[in-house]
């Protein structure tokens, strides 16, 4: 069982995504991992290339996405009532990166700004928070932004994770609109798996669930992540369909967190939803954590039409699902940011 609910009258007006300019292809990793291992990785995980930051940060990429939506006419400083920043790799311990972006963007003092500390499930959780704020009546428009630069917390020489992860930022404009859609949600967490994906550095704690946090780098127990994914996510999809009174056949697409292609194929097989209807971006961008769902929507923007099931899952462990028809949403071309 999970937290479920539906928010009426919501419009996702526009989404933009930005990546840093440095593209790293698989040939880069051959001297470190060996040609055979890189070939196997490419075949199974499905990443052909990804973009890595040099000096850019999550704030940089999020800001570029916000500027893109401003240039597209999706928001102005006068219309935004809240700025939410979702990330596992914020620019600072304090202040909230949302506050720094509030200043960067020239938002009003009446505009709230705060961070949400989530990764792979962060976009759907961010939409849930935004929709709740809009329905509560206090806000008319919310700028939901964020992203992740996980390469900034990889240990030197951790080429396996460097092959998997890419860096990206995103922004989305969410509005209250009486003609907007009803947004059904399902959210869940399993804190017993809190140590499965972890990084120290910046926090006050030294251990989590018996695991050490004595360095700043990302640690991921891949087998545990996979066990969680194949056992929890298909059941969550079924529960979401039951609660929202939808069938798999009602969805034109799945836009899922791009964990890796093997995992997505397993989910397709276990749910019975054709893999061909999964929107994919991992081959060209890698796993971009909280940015992976908006990135997948924008990268496939010419093919996105109809009711789409979104599912974020991972670090926490946590998962969040929602569905929305993106036909009238402006999905911007993925921007490449100077770095």
């Amino acid at each position: 069982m999970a937290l479920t609910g539906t928010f009426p009258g919501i419009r996702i007006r526009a989404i933009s995504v930005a990546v840093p300019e440095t593209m790293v292809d698989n040939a880069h990793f051959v001297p470190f991992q060996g040609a055979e291992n890189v070939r196997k990785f490419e075949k199974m995980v499905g990443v052909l290339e990804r973009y890595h930051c040099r000096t850019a940060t999550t704030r940089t990429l999020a800001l570029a996405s916000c500027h893109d939506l401003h240039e597209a006419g999706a928001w102005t400083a006068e219309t935004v009532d809240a700025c939410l920043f979702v990330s596992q790799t914020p620019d600072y311990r304090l202040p909230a990166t949302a506050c720094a972006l509030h200043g960067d963007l020239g938002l009003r003092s009446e505009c709230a700004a705060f961070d949400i500390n989530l990764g792979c499930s962060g976009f759907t959780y961010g939409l849930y928070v935004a929709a709740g704020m809009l329905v509560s009546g206090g806000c008319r428009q919310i700028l939901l932004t964020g992203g992740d630069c996980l390469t900034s917390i990889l240990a030197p020489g951790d080429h396996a994770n460097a092959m998997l992860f890419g860096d990206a930022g995103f922004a989305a404009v969410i509005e209250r609109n009486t003609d907007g859609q009803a947004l059904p949600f399902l959210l869940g967490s399993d804190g017993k798996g809190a140590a499965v994906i972890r990084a120290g550095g910046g926090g006050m704690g030294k251990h989590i669930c018996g695991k050490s946090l004595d360095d700043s780098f990302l640690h991921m127990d891949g087998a545990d992540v996979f066990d969680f994914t194949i056992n929890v996510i298909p059941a969550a999809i079924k529960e979401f369909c039951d609660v929202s009174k939808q069938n798999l056949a009602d969805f034109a697409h799945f836009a899922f967190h791009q964990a890796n292609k093997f995992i997505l194929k397993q989910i397709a097989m276990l749910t019975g939803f054709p893999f061909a209807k999964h929107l994919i971006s991992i081959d060209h961008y890698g796993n971009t954590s909280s940015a992976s769902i908006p990135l997948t929507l924008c990268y496939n923007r010419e093919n996105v039409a109809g009711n789409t099931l979104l599912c974020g899952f991972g670090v926490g462990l946590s998962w969040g699902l929602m569905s929305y028809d993106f036909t009238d949403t402006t999905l911007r071309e993925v921007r490449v940011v100077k770095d």
Partner: protein
Amino acid sequence: MTEKENIEALADIFETDASSLTKETILKDIGWDSMTMLSVMALSKAHGKNLNGDQVRALVTVGDLLAYL
């Protein structure tokens, strides 16, 4: 599935010849890594069983693995 069919499925995962695999084969000698771990977990799930993270990390031989298929 029969043991022979399971061995053939494992040979496919490890990209090796099924005839080279025995119950005593050491997994680390045939390419036991994070990717093959996920593949055998998926194979176990497809057989209606569950091989969790702790169990998969504890496997040493092909024989150990066959118990979960």
